[in-house]
């Protein structure tokens, strides 16, 4: 009997509803032993939901799941693990305070007379590391490990439990190009040993290079399952998106005259929690109307740099906005001076339980226009919110509604509209389009370019290389707190940037 004939997993007519949306609508999906099967689709297409159902984290409303031909009912992660399914989530499910070893054995600890037998665990894990060519410091605290090492811990967790089916949710999104290559080589090895690898991704280049078959989801439905070898990125895009994509307007021609500087940064240094510099003597300049993109893997100091500039983080060095020295000013003073900040984490931008109009004035609520002698003017607040909603196409009910009822995309548009509407001299934008679909992303990119045309300088921090390449005039790559290299966008390509991102150039 050829094992290959019976699919490793079959999901038949899975339906999963959330309040207001059907995440999976009669979705069918099957994957075979020994293959890397890519599951692709836009954000919100239902890929993660489907895999969460398979892994027992969510119950399906209807449908059937078969593992190796046998119908099963998976109601918890524990059961999924017992069936040989392992999942590496997009946001790691690790306990930062525990060591790598503790994280790997959590829930499956070897026991001897009531004690945890760490020795047995260690031996077993070392065996797995050797077999799959993984290297991790088992005694290190996960909080101290690099992102790619943390991912290896996640993978080892699944392997330790004898997973034969491995689901990976956007694994390369947190890796530099070379690290991603290593990861995929390892996945190929695993598939070669007969494991079934399911790869959730929205990056078509990885899908084309590494997968054997591709299943496309769109708006909760299965569109098609094709062999990778017989398709193309264009066809996959069409299947994913289903309609014409908004073309984002071309980059404005770079002015050839010297532009006066919006921001001049010299020797900016931030000491991190461990006592080592998170940002190490960084210097750069942003000219009027220019977009400087900072590329790099998450965790190399980008966040600290942005926070230092806006005043949320202690730093030494110099940062001059126009003619104003920023260090020594409070956050409020920097906002008044004309800086706007779009944080990576929306927790730092919006108050979920407060209404839209209150969120809209946050950061300027003390200023003339909204307040006099310490008292707010409700009419002014209301009309400001109305203008913002209209201009930036924020789809909402009423301005008195709490912001938490807006979708992620609309919340992001609100944040962006609030910042741009204040005509900043300098815009610090971190991951401005994370989680947004293609159309919303294009809208926001257009808005940013419009502000640049008006003379604003933009510091763009993004982990999405495509976004950096699309928007920036100049690209700086951050690695371990310092600037590994600076490239003009016209001359940049993914390989050279990738090399800088891992410090290999």
């Amino acid at each position: 009997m050829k094992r290959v004939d019976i699919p490793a997993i079959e999901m038949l007519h899975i339906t999963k509803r959330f309040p207001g949306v059907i995440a999976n609508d009669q979705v069918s999906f099957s994957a075979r032993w020994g293959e890397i099967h890519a599951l692709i689709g836009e954000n919100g297409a239902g890929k993660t939901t489907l895999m969460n159902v398979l892994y027992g984290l969510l119950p399906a409303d209807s449908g059937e799941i078969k593992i190796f031909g046998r119908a099963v009912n998976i109601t918890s992660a524990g059961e999924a693990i017992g069936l040989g399914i392992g999942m590496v989530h997009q946001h790691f499910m690790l306990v930062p305070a525990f060591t790598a070893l503790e994280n790997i054995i959590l829930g499956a600890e070897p026991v001897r007379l009531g004690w945890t037998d760490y020795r047995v665990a260690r031996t077993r894990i070392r065996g797995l590391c050797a077999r799959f060519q993984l290297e991790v410091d088992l005694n290190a605290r996960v909080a101290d490990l690099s992102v790619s090492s943390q991912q290896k811990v996640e993978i080892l967790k699944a392997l330790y439990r004898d997973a034969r089916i491995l689901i990976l949710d956007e694994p390369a999104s947190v890796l530099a190009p070379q690290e991603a290559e290593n990861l995929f080589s390892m996945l190929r090895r695993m598939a070669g040993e007969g494991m079934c690898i399911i790869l959730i991704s929205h990056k078509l280049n990885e899908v084309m290079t590494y997968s054997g078959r591709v299943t496309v989801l769109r708006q909760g439905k299965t569109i098609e399952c094709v062999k990778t070898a017989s398709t193309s990125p264009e066809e996959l895009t069409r299947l994913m998106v289903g309609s014409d994509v908004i073309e984002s307007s071309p980059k404005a021609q770079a002015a050839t005259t010297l532009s006066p500087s919006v921001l001049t940064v010299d020797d900016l240094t931030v000491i991190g929690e461990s006592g080592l510099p998170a940002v190490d003597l960084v210097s750069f300049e942003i000219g009027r109307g220019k977009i400087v993109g900072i590329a790099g893997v998450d965790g190399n100091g980008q966040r600290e740099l942005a926070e230092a500039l806006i005043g949320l983080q202690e730093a030494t060095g110099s940062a001059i906005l126009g003619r104003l020295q920023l260090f020594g000013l409070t956050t409020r003073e920097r906002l008044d001076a004309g800086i706007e900040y779009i944080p990576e984490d929306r927790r730092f931008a919006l108050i979920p339980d407060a209404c839209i109009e209150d969120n809209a004035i946050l950061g300027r609520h003390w200023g003339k226009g909204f307040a006099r002698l310490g008292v707010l003017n409700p009419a002014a607040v209301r009309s400001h919110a109305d203008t913002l909603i209209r201009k930036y196409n924020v789809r909402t009910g009423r301005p008195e509604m709490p912001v938490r009822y807006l979708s992620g995309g609309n919340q992001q548009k609100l944040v962006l509209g609030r910042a741009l509407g204040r005509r900043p001299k300098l815009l610090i934008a971190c991951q401005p389009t994370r989680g947004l679909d293609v159309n919303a992303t294009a809208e926001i990119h257009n808005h940013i370019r419009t502000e640049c045309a008006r003379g604003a300088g933009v510091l763009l921090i993004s982990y999405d290389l495509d976004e950096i390449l699309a928007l920036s005039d100049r690209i700086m790559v951050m690695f371990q707190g310092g600037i590994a290299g600076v490239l003009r966008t016209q001359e940049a390509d993914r390989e050279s940037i990738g090399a800088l991102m891992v410090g290999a150039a």
Partner: protein
Amino acid sequence: MRRILAIAANPLAALGLAFGVASIVIVISGENPLSSFGAMFAGALGSGPALSETLIKTIPLAISGLAVALGLRAGLFNIGVEGQLLVGGLAAAYAGYAIELPAVAHIPVCIAAGVIGGMIWGYLPGILKAGRGVHEVISTIMLNYIAFYLTHYLVTHQLKDVHTMAPQTPAIHPTAVLPQISQSGLHWGILIAGLCVLWFAFFLSRSVKGFELKAVGQGPDAARASGISVPGMIVLAMVLSGGLAGLAGSVEVLGVHHKFYDQFSPGYGFDSIAVAILGGNTAIGTALSALLFGALRNGAIGMQLATNTPKEIVTLIQAIVIVFAGMRLLGRTQAVPSPPEGEGRGGGPHG
């Protein structure tokens, strides 16, 4: 009208459940809940003097309830109202007997002394939290005990009335007494309470500082990134909250007792927690809730005399009210107090 019902639904349900559970407790201990609550009702509202007494009890509950509510809106759990109330009351009493001024000046001076006393006692936990991360629940509870012992010491030693054995200050001068409105003892404090309600509503809905205070309570990260000084707001909220609590103590001293005596507060500071939570941390809600608890506390005394049900049943009702009213903490007006050990920054990639 529908909106009023919608807002009132949760507190009313909480009350109903609380009375239900209390009835069960009464039955288990061998008494009749109907006669008990009936006696309570009579004791609270059954006559002119009873109603007056209820209102008199409402005054400190309302002001200290607003104190707790203000803290909660800033995301702070001020359990120290009892201690702040004691310190404020003592300060007011001292100003009342140690200085001599015409009434027009004396009363405001005494009130100011009480407010400042409460502000100081509120400032301490505020600065401890803002500067050292000490969680306000524990520090305010500790300060309650400290205030209790401190005031006890002072009224048995330095500030003691030498003419009696009792631990109390001398009586305040007549010029410091809050004038009465009716024969039954209702005093001007009720106007002060009303002003506090109005101030509270205005401060939170229309002032810039109030806006910032709410922001800190509902979204401290976003507040910080928007240029609001979170430590500054914490201190401001605790100082204002303490000041209100001190005011409550002063009003009691100046309007009812006319001196400070040891343990003059039958636990207003603790009642005020339930008052604020039941009232949804709003101005009107707190005022109505204070009226309710004033009635309960007053009525319970009568109930204990008429039946065998101890007045502590009200404490039980309070606890249950807090639980059920508190369950609606995701509502618009209630802030969620933070856990004692501070928010940890998550490690690893997070969404």
